[in-house]
């Protein structure tokens, strides 16, 4: 019962945050300098198109009515017409979203597998020279600008060595019959390698440091001492008893990391010309394609908000000692 109430209040909080972010977005794009209609209407649209959009978004009405219409349209997934692509923003975003998600998840999975293993190892080898050298190194990877790391990788592996392609998702001229055909092709994976590696190098620090400090905490708990007294081997104690318990908070941090990664993607996608949401946001803002910029921003915000929610719920679910007070 108590749990239901906690989840209920968390969902209420979610609704508040969603409403606030949507409202901030509305205000940002309406209060910008210039023509208030510029948020949806490009002068090059035909008169018919302009009138249709005018009616659809109520652009001739007072601001508060526009706001209500905007909310109503959002609920139906209606985001307007992209100026540059001449197609609905929603459609454009659905094309880009898979590219961003594939990049995000492939890099994060690599980062987490490496980070968890290396973190557990460093906790086990605590005080050794390996640990002494590794920790500042890991902190340094956290201090790198992601796009700069991308530039260095690009210069080395693409331009100097010529091993991997420099950008995009496929070699020019290559056509693929479908979704799965493209995403499993060798061509696509070669294009994915560099941006994913860049993001993975940047992201591995979080799970690594978290895993290490959790391991050190868990190793001091009574049940680990108990396992040692029982005479279990060092390996069994570390892996089967300590690591399992240290893993839970690291797994919940995965959800948070997805949100952060999506923001970092903005620059890395730009370096590698990766056709994803982040690069589209940058291009849309630069080209004053406001409907598309709003849509891309909203999509990124939605993922961030839902991942925060997921992390909170997972945390409470995996560790019942934590209550939503």
């Amino acid at each position, binding site marked *: 019962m108590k749990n239901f109430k906690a989840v209920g209040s968390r969902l209420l909080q979610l609704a508040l945050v969603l409403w606030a972010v949507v409202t901030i977005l509305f205000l940002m794009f309406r209060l910008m300098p210039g023509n208030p209609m510029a948020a949806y209407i490009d002068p090059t649209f035909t008169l018919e198109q302009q009138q249709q959009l005018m009616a659809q978004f109520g652009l001739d009405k007072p601001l508060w009515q526009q706001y209500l219409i905007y909310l109503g349209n959002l609920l139906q997934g209606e985001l307007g017409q992209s100026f540059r692509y001449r197609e609905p923003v929603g459609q454009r975003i659905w094309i880009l979203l898979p590219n961003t998600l594939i990049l995000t998840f492939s890099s994060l999975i690599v980062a987490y597998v490496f980070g968890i293993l290396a973190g557990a190892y460093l906790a086990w080898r605590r005080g050794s020279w390996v640990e002494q050298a590794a920790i500042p190194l890991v902190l340094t990877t956290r201090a790198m*600008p992601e796009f700069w790391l991308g530039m260095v990788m*690009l210069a080395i592996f693409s331009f100097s060595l010529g091993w991997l392609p420099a950008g995009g998702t496929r070699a020019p001229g290559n056509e693929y019959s479908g979704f799965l055909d493209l995403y499993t092709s060798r061509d696509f994976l070669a294009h994915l390698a560099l941006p994913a590696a860049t993001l993975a190098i940047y992201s591995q620090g979080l799970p690594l440091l978290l895993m290490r400090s959790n391991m050190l905490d868990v190793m001091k708990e009574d049940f680990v001492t108990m396992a040692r007294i029982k005479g279990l081997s060092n390996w069994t104690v570390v892996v089967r008893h300590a690591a399992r318990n240290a893993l839970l908070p690291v797994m919940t941090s995965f959800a948070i990391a997805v949100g952060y990664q999506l923001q970092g993607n*903005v620059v890395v996608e730009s370096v590698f010309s990766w056709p994803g949401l982040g690069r589209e946001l940058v291009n849309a*803002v630069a080209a004053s394609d406001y409907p598309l910029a709003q849509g891309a921003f909203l999509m990124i*915000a939605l993922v961030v908000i839902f991942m925060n929610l997921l992390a909170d719920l997972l945390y409470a679910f995996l560790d019942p000692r934590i209550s939503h007070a």
Partner: protein
Amino acid sequence: MPEIAAPAIIKPRRPHILARMFRALRLPMNDPFAVAGLLIYLVFIVVAVFADQIATHDPTEILYTPAYDLAADLRPGEDGFIMGTTSLGRDIFSQLVYGSRSALLIGITAAFMVALIGSVIGLVAGYFGRWVDAILMRLADIAFGIPFLPFVIVLAAFLKPSIWNVVIAMALVLWRDTARVIRSQVLTLRTRGYVEAARVAGSSDFKIILRHIAPNILPLSFLYGSIAIGWAILTEASISFLGFGDPNSISWGYMLQDAFASQALAKQAYYWFVPPGICIILVVSAGFFITRGYENILFPKLSR
């Protein structure tokens, strides 16, 4: 018979106010990482202050070789350019030196704003509790729902290009982490005996916050401030790289954008785009190292 000196009246001298403030920060001077971090800061501050003396050229001036050719894409050492020149014939070393100015300027002001706003909100929310706390913490929830980098990009596009956009955006959004941590710290401090005593003795809320609670959270504010310096520099670099920066101010992010747009990668001009990245890493990791030293003092449980 030994003479017994009259007991000197030892009057406890109150140290100077600056000395007391310095001590209140509890700088982690015995942690080698933290000292290294502080030293890196010191070096960059010196370079930023004396940039006019250290730089060999005007960072924006288009330069010519002694043979009156455009000094474009020269390698390090050629014609006396220490680190070579850009494709437009500008001196890379001088840009690097002047870049430290905007980095520190943005880093320190943004960190100050974030630490100040976050600390005040955390203090007020934690101390007054009830509806004040509820409202401020819901605001923090909202701030956590805003994707930071996309927010800066949109903001930078609508405002005039300026290095201060990053500072404004950070002040608007990134106070959230500091505020949450300070608030929970204040919640425990509020129940301490000496705070109760001050309240019973009739001290005003304002005085209790300022005299009894604020000094105890100062190191925590400083810790979050030193993380924020790094965030600000990284964000400025990203924004400049994406082309939303101030084209008239030389920053490390601007240098990287210039290099990227001028095909420095394909030209193998490592001497151009590697140094600004190294400088960013040095300054940002200096902040991390100081933070680590702090954590050892503030949360001894973590230090092992």
